[in-house]
């Protein structure tokens, strides 16, 4: 503690010395390869969003097919496309938390894309309430209406995004052994229909899938190369300290707060599948793996694309090893450990956290602990670099 405080005090002094005159012309204290690492990061972000966009477009085609011809086959295909679309998206979550394109407070679409947890009765029928939700109401279902309804009355009233689509494809997860079992006939408009308002349900699915593609398109554009006015241009032109501050902020908050805390610890504490991240599809174990994979990608400066090719360059790791090789080695080991522990989780996650499953809970606990340690070692790096306070506004 004493040491940390001293570092803080020194960091403050350094920041003050740099900022008191606010001339903005301070030279960088980072190794010379920092700017290359920042460029690599931008390339990885763009490639990840391109893959995410392509996967979302494929998902949209599959929901079109489901709506046109509801059948066991089209339902299964749509579910597979949803799962596939999550793989690159989860790897993009490490690009959150610094008010970048994904979650800046003015127009960042994160709340429309991936907000969770979901109050399912806000969207469609649930056990015990056959007429619940927007689908069984009378408000018009279009993008503008759903956007205005999203998060109305608090974070929980989620009307759009991946988890809304997930709920429409799987329904409530009422089974101990598998995911939700919404019948494809919920979308049937003929005598096979198993729920009222199939047309409104189909419209809803179509609108949220379209919105998903649109939002991801905007993110890919914000990070596209060659522009002089998009976010990437500003990001690469910023002081290297500021760009590294943003990169590390995403890694730190996703490790400890979001994945280790909100998603894993909360579920472990309650032992309740209501607190599971992708509860309808039982896909939560993949969410955890790809969240950590995204952190791994940024650290190593390497991203394996959906088509198997690799985007690679100078990684953050290559910069930090020049600053403090021991700390860099600690981060290496910690991220490797977290990734291995995430891959060791056994699906379905709701059984992994069940109160009676000591072995499963121990696996989740081990991952929580590793992610907390990961947050701490990344914070140590953050402080080492003197990034603890942003440049005065």
């Amino acid at each position: 503690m004493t040491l940390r405080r001293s570092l803080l005090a020194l960091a403050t002094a350094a920041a003050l010395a740099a900022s008191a005159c606010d001339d903005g012309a301070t030279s960088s204290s980072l190794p010379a390869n920092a700017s290359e690492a920042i460029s690599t990061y931008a390339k990885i972000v763009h490639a990840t969003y391109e893959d995410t966009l392509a996967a979302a477009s494929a998902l949209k085609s599959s929901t079109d097919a489901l709506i046109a011809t509801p059948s066991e086959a089209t339902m299964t295909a749509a579910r597979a496309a949803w799962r596939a679309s999550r793989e690159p998206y989860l790897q993009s979550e490490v690009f959150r938390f610094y008010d970048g394109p994904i979650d800046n407070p003015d127009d960042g679409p994160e709340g429309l894309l991936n907000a969770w947890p979901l109050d399912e009765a806000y969207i469609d029928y649930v056990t015990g309430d056959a007429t619940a939700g927007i689908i069984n109401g009378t408000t018009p279902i279009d993008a503008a209406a759903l956007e205005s309804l999203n998060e109305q009355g608090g974070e929980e009233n989620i009307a759009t995004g991946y988890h809304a689509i997930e709920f429409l494809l799987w329904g409530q997860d009422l089974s101990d052994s598998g995911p939700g079992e919404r019948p494809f006939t919920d979308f049937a408009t003929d005598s096979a229909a198993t729920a009222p308002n199939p047309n409104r349900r189909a419209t809803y699915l179509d609108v949220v899938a379209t919105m998903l593609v649109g939002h991801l398109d905007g993110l890919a554009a914000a990070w596209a190369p060659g522009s002089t006015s998009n976010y990437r241009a500003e990001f690469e032109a910023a002081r290297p300290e500021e760009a590294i501050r943003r990169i590390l902020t995403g890694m730190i908050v996703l490790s400890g707060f979001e994945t280790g805390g909100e998603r894993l610890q909360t579920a472990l504490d309650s032992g309740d599948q209501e607190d599971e991240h992708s509860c309808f599809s039982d896909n939560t174990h993949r969410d955890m793996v790809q969240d950590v994979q995204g952190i791994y990608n940024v650290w190593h400066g390497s991203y394996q694309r959906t088509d198997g090719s690799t985007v690679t360059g100078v990684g953050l790791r290559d910069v930090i090893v020049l600053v403090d090789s021991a700390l860099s080695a600690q981060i290496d080991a910690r991220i490797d450990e977290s990734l291995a522990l995430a891959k060791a989780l056994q699906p379905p996650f709701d059984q992994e956290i069940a109160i009676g499953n000591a072995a499963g809970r121990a696996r989740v606990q081990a991952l929580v602990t590793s992610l907390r340690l990961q947050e701490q070692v990344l914070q140590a790096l953050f402080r080492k670099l003197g990034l603890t306070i942003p440049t005065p506004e």
Partner: protein
Amino acid sequence: MRVARTAALVLTLASLAACADGGGDAASLHPDEWLPGGATTNTLLFGSNAFTRPAENITEAHALLFYSGNSGFNQAWVQAPASTTTHDGLGPIFNARSCAACHFKDGRGRPPLDSDEPFLGLLLRLSVPGDAPHGEPVPDPVYGGQLQPFGVLGVAAEGRPTVTTEEIHGEYDDGTPYTLLAPTYSIEDPAYGPLSPDLRISPRVAPATIGMGLLEAIPDARLAALEDPDDLDGDGISGRRNRVWDVELEDVVTGRFGWKAEQPTVRQQSAAAFNGDIGVSSPMFEGSDCTPAQQSCLDAHSGGDPELTNELLDRVELYCQLLAVPARSAHAKPEVLRGKRLFAEAGCDSCHTPNHRTSPDAALEELRDQHIWPYTDLLLHDMGDALSDHRPSFAATGAEWRTPPLWGLRYNLVVNGHDRLLHDGRARGTAEAILWHGGEGEASRDAFRAMTAADRQALIAFVESL
């Protein structure tokens, strides 16, 4: 440690001295000042998530509970019965479905900006004249202690709150004009019969929820020492503690939370909000705000007895206690330091007491013995007739309000997208909030009004650097 601190200070002073312009009459900078929450301060995450971090010195055991508390704070309650058993029991009448609905991103609410917008983040407390056992307001016999503008299916919402505003024009001593918005609140479409002619209405916005554990950990003796109920020192300021009912202790204690310091602890504040605002019962507050005149409300399904377990309340309490205050970043700017001196010279710090040391015996170890900078004395002060709600509460008169903390104020805009201040959010930014000060705050307000434009700007820059 000591060496590093000294080195930091020397460097700071050296770098400040290097900027000759405008820094000459600045206040000095305390080396702890950039960490308003001491070792709990969030030095990591800023921007729109600036209020969402746990105390940085959080213990491993508490971190685990913190995240569950966060979930309890965000999670929406649903109408009972429901497939969810842990979160059913909304209402039957309510103001919001979750804590975060009003304290969005752990920040503050505001009044609606037009007549189509629902009241979220601003509620109306109700009472009628009379004597209650502990000096608290007497709930309206039909509408209860606050207006709940929503009801679950089958239970009518109590009514529709509305606000209209009237412009008040004034000018600074240098002739610069300004406009204030004076609000009037009323209730349309009362669903359970006509409103009592004696009805008292007090509007309250949801405050930011950061740093509450630290405020709770300021020793009562410190607050007692700051009191001057009879203004013996003749400075025109007569702060006093509110004396309120502690439900668990069954005793009268110092009030600390709420706009009139009506709640003694974070725990009681949280349980009262669950009960009054979301309609969720707990061991501390059983039942709901339904009155005998509201039969459909009394007849509605319960989500269990209690709906909120002590286990979940424990976690939400700990979450609110350990939500960190963000570090300052512009604290060393010459204009900010000049504004800090003007803030003191205008007497603002007579009530907005800059710093305290928390108790070494605080319940949570993270909060013990911290040097904190909340800019409040937690005492009641007469703020004049224009701000009065004419609704006494415990020891507080209608015109008396608790000094609100100023820490984190610069993030209002980025966290919540607005800069509304004061108990009902009537002030559009810092200057208007100061201009509304009356009563004990009148002298400071007049000093602000007499300042040059540059000095006013510096004072605001200081407040908005907190």
